[in-house]
């Protein structure tokens, strides 16, 4: 597949190119600052964009903004966002216009080459790859809720679903049969009161929407505060 990389650190950039090339992918362009990203994407129309969050000129969240802009300009473009640290808020912003073809991972995960390439494939295929850290934060937040009534195994399944894994991967990870996974998923959806959905990004969205309810509430309260400021 054809990839555009945006990463300002030369060491990491070269490592990434090496890794992707060794996996048989083609890096068609590299951007090393925020403003370079969108033009590169528009020019090369890659299969996927791999973006670092913090980049010049401001060394703030240029990569994230570029990712959001890219998804607005080129709907359906798979984007994988990498960062030295993950923020729930950023995940929520990225997921705001759909979880399809979206990844948000810690840079550490690149070291697990197989898993990283798998996540990349998933994103290119229209799936989702959400970092376990984000999912963990989301899960611990909803602690006084039906999430508590889940069995440990069901929680693990919920966790993996939220990361964007499909049934086969979940089964492999937990070393159980796919039928058992389906059963667990059924239980999770029933306990959380969610309508059953097929595997795929719709399911991820349903799970994330559920876990993210607190944050959505906060968003409402925040905009209320903002409007109060403008008065």
């Amino acid at each position, binding site marked *: 597949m054809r990839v555009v990389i945006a990463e300002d650190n030369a060491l990491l950039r070269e490592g990434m190119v090496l890794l992707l090339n060794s996996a048989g992918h083609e890096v068609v362009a590299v951007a090393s600052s925020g403003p370079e990203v969108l033009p590169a994407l528009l020019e090369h129309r890659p299969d996927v964009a791999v973006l670092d969050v913090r980049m010049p000129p401001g060394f703030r969240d240029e990569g994230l903004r570029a990712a959001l802009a890219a998804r607005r300009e080129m709907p359906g473009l798979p984007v994988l966002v990498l960062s030295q640290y993950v923020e729930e808020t950023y995940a929520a912003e990225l997921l705001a216009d759909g979880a399809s073809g979206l990844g948000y991972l810690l840079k550490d995960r690149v*070291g697990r080459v197989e898993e990283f390439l798998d996540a990349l494939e998933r994103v290119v295929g229209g799936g989702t790859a959400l970092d376990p850290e984000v999912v963990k*934060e989301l899960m611990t*937040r909803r602690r006084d809720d039906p999430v508590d009534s889940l069995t440990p195994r069901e929680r693990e399944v919920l966790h993996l679903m939220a990361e964007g894994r499909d049934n086969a991967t979940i089964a492999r990870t937990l070393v159980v049969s796919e039928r058992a996974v389906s059963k667990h998923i059924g239980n999770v959806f029933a306990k959380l009161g969610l309508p059953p959905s097929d595997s795929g990004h719709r399911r991820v969205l349903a799970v994330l929407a559920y876990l993210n309810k607190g*944050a959505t509430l906060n968003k409402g309260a925040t905009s209320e505060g903002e409007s109060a400021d403008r008065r």
Partner: protein
Amino acid sequence: MRETVRRAGWASVELLRAAGLALASYLSIGVVIFAAVAMATVVGAGVLPESVLLLRRTAGYKRRLVGAWTGESVPEAYRPLAGEAFARARAAVGDPATYRDLRWMVAHAGYGWLLACCAIPVWMIGLLVDGVWCGLLGKRAVVLPLIERLVDLDAAWSRALLLPSPEALRSARLAERVEELSETRAGAVAAHGAELRRIERDLHDGAQARLVALSMRVGLARRAYEKDPDAAHKLLEDAQDQAEEALTELRHVVRGIHPPILTDRGLVGAVRALAAGSGLEVSVRDDGVEDGPRAPAAVEAAAYFVIAEALTNAAKHSGARRASVGLVRMPDRLRVAVRDEGRGGADPSGGSGLLGMRRRVAALDGTVEMTSPVGGPTLIEVELPCVW
């Protein structure tokens, strides 16, 4: 009647003290004049500051007496006498307060004495008149209370003469402020040092140690590579685990130094992210902080950690479901208020989190106010001085 006499008696004691002080004043004035004259000689330079100190002590004693009588303390403002003999003498001579004190002392040597003398006839007439008027007829005493008025007079005059000039008072306040600032600055430096040591230790015990272990495993894997590929594989796997743990720890340390989201999104954005992740329904109200220049990084970080701590406490202990955070840009400071609708009753002095919060804020010369009545709400207000 008994009460009247008792009060007159106390007033007389005051007047006697004044008279005694007036007598002592004669001596003091003598000493000061002697010292001033002796200034011409080398010995005088040593004696003068001492006699000025005596003058200050006498005036200080009177200030306390007047303060006790009127219930309103009389401030004092002196230049410190420090350094070698000549510097001390110069400071003593150069301090306008010395002349104010001298003026008071001369005046008081007169009126202190005079007022005490006035009390004697008042006593004699008072006992006679009030004895009949108050003691026998049960009316209000009229003469004996005059003694208290005499003390009032002494207090008023002394107060007027002993009150330092406005400039002296201002410079004394400034001196006090400087001392306060040097103290908080020393505190800030100490806190900063402690913080650096903590970071150093965290890195040394955590990420650094893990990287050493990682390097060892990679080295072992290289040795085993030819002879025992399985073992090499296992070692490399371990090495990767170590690398990931080191990265996790580094992230943790970085968050403790300066949360990255503060850099990315500024204080308001970072606080909104905190609010979203707090598990509470939090409304964030920003009053001008997001517009215009940002606060210094240290101020933003302090505000961020205070809010994080307050929200954590609210989520853990207060039982509240809602909280609100207010950020206000003021001309010379940043105001932060965190309020939760929980059960209240939080101990304002206790808790290591709160102590850390106070220390962090004090290091920036800020203030923390906390009110938490039983039944709630709990309100934490923090003010951090800053230049925007």
